[in-house]
């Protein structure tokens, strides 16, 4: 999996990446919450999702849980050398207390 060149300023490097591509709502947010569980404030997590509902639900989850949504970027990635997959990458920095 190779990310395509990205014109926007790069978000901070993520400590971990959650791949929720192909999952429908509310699963991307649940996967993100599971990954956030027990991690320290300041941890940066990247979420990859294709579900259109994540566009609204990731920011809403950050608001409800006190996390910061640092970046939302459309990415084209090439899988196994040919298939192009369009997805959205969300970069989240966990706030206090990370649940």
């Amino acid at each position, binding site marked *: 999996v190779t990310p395509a060149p990205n014109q926007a300023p790069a978000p901070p490097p993520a400590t971990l990446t959650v791949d929720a591509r192909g999952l429908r*709502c509310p699963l991307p*947010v*649940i996967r993100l919450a599971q990954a956030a569980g027990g991690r320290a404030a300041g941890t940066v997590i990247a979420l990859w999702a294709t579900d*259109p*509902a994540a*566009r*609204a639900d990731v920011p809403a989850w950050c608001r409800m849980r006190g996390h910061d949504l640092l970046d939302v970027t459309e990415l084209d990635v090439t899988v196994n050398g040919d298939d192009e997959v369009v997805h959205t990458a969300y970069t989240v920095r966990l706030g206090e207390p990370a649940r």
Partner: protein
Amino acid sequence: VANHPGERAVLDAASTPMHPVARDTLMAAVDAGWADPRRLYAEGRTARRLLDQAVEVLAAGLRVRPSELSFAPSGPAAVRLAVDGALHAGRRRGSRLVATAVEHSAVLAPGRHRAAQGGDDRLFAEVPVDGTGRVDLDAFAEAVGVTGTTAAAVQHANGEVGTVQPLARAHDLCRATGIPLVVDAQASLGRVDSPGSYDVLAGDAQSWGGPGGVGVLAVPERTRWSLPGPAGEPGLGRSGHTPWVPLALAAAEAWQQAEATRSEEERQARALVDLVRAAAATVPDVEVVGHPTDRLPHIVTFSALYVDGEALVHEFDRRGFAIASGSACTASTLEPSHVLAAMGALTHGNVRLTLPLASVSPRRDADVERFCAALPEVVLDVRAQLGAEHL
């Protein structure tokens, strides 16, 4: 919470069972008013008289003259015609439309389509709303001030979250720049006082317990409004659409029934919605959506974190409740509600109630109480199905 087999609680009156008296009127009018009201023979003249009566009732209800009222094949069709007529009449000025981001798709979809066809983003401006769903009036003022703006569309109140828009101020801003304000009142007509701040008004008889297939338009004489294409037949209002007379008559009967009990109905519905809001707020990670006070009396919606909206609809259905949802996969689309998204609200795990009129649904109080009792358990069960109860 016990199952009540066969006892259905309809809490989604966006498409409503008819008022029983209006239903009787419809049945009688099928026999008495079937004819084409434009025909000159006795049956046609009878249909004409019945249609005129319906127009008189509905025009009085919307506080316009009978000549200013017309019909459309549905509420969404009325909204679309309302916008089309305002844009067409103002075509020398331009073709730019300004609308709030929470308008009905009957405004948003054609607006986006026109901009795409014209290859010009500026032909359609969507004005943002705040977290309660109210339009940002500063952004609205800026948008209607752009050269070439021809019309603006602001709903009276939102049909998904109930929030009422500041129409008087939006209308002032439109008047200051000389553009007409189209108001979509599909969610509110007959439930609260009809709005007075508009240049073109569109509604749907289903909001007051009338039949489907009856859209209404109020276009005051002062408004510059005309549809493209050949002129309609005279005497049928400015839309040129002649409704099926029995439907128009049933819509008028339902209006009179709703109007007779409106203030008490409004008070009761508001109290029931307050019960639902309170019950929803007791469940962990459930957000009640919409303005807390400046809202329609009969619409309430909430979203539950980590809950599948489709599963919620099915679980409530299994327990006897007909409820709607703005979550993706709960309607004809895979996209979640644009209204919830524009408000920054959670779109998954969404439940929306549109209370029927008490006169349409006599067991409404008990239905809502039963719903409130079932709500926490259903939300927690559906959340647990995804293993998300401790996140």
